[in-house]
């Protein structure tokens, strides 16, 4: 069945898209939704958890940085696409653009000295996925694409 779903999604470009309010209240729902859809692809529990976490980090960043904590009106759009070899999840925001540059492992000793309470998200997100890619579209949105390779079945 997973095979069939995967092939169908691929062949005719099928996508599942959610649009969710850009607020931290909804992160718990975003994780459930991702897990619901991704579990159909036949991924193991452990992989699902990684994907949930990566998407959660991406959305938390949108809310905190792209939308700078402004309450409410702007949505986050999440799109899922499956090909026989990849699960592709894109997180689109309509806020501030940034340049992720090269994402290095956090220097924990330094962070602890500086009493930082953040700065771990992008590295975690990158570590949990196989590929990530950030683009900014002149039409006014940014898109972070998260890719997980699927084992051929």
């Amino acid at each position, binding site marked *: 069945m997973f095979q069939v779903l995967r092939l169908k999604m691929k062949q005719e470009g099928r996508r599942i898209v959610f649009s969710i309010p850009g607020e*931290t*209240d909804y*992160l*718990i729902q975003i*994780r459930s939704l991702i897990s619901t859809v991704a579990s159909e692809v036949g991924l193991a*529990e*452990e992989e699902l*958890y990684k994907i*949930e*976490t990566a998407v*959660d*980090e991406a959305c*938390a960043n949108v*809310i*905190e940085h792209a939308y700078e904590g402004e309450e409410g009106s702007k949505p986050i759009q999440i799109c899922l696409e499956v090909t026989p070899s990849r699960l592709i999840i894109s997180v689109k925001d309509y806020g501030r653009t940034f340049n992720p540059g090269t994402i290095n*492992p*956090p220097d*924990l*000793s330094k*962070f*602890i*000295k500086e*009493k*930082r*309470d*953040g*700065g*771990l*998200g992008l*590295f*975690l997100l990158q*570590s*949990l996925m196989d590929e990530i890619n950030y683009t900014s579209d002149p039409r006014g949105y940014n898109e972070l694409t998260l890719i997980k390779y699927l084992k051929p079945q």
Partner: protein
Amino acid sequence: MQKLRISTEVVGPHKDIVKIKVSGFLDAHTVPEMEEVVQSLIEKGLYKMIVDLEELSYISSAGLGVFMSVIGDVRDNRGDIILIRIPPKIFKVFDLLGFTEIFTTLNQEEEAILAFTKE
């Protein structure tokens, strides 16, 4: 369904250790609740903390940030934060970010109490 539950309890032979039991989801939404609990312990001078994560279902980087931001202060005051009973999938996240090298992670509350008592 509540998203995050935190309870604290004083333990150990000298009643100077606080066990913090965390269950549910520790994400960008609930992290302020966790911060508040940890800050109020620090304000009371309680620097010996055992954090029981057995029933934690989810942690994001913001959750880890709470521990990162206070561990310096806590250790400067002859205390520590010992993480116990970390579920495997949550342990992986701690590990990926290097937290398992900086924090003491143990399986049992008794071991953690012993670690504090021996010092």
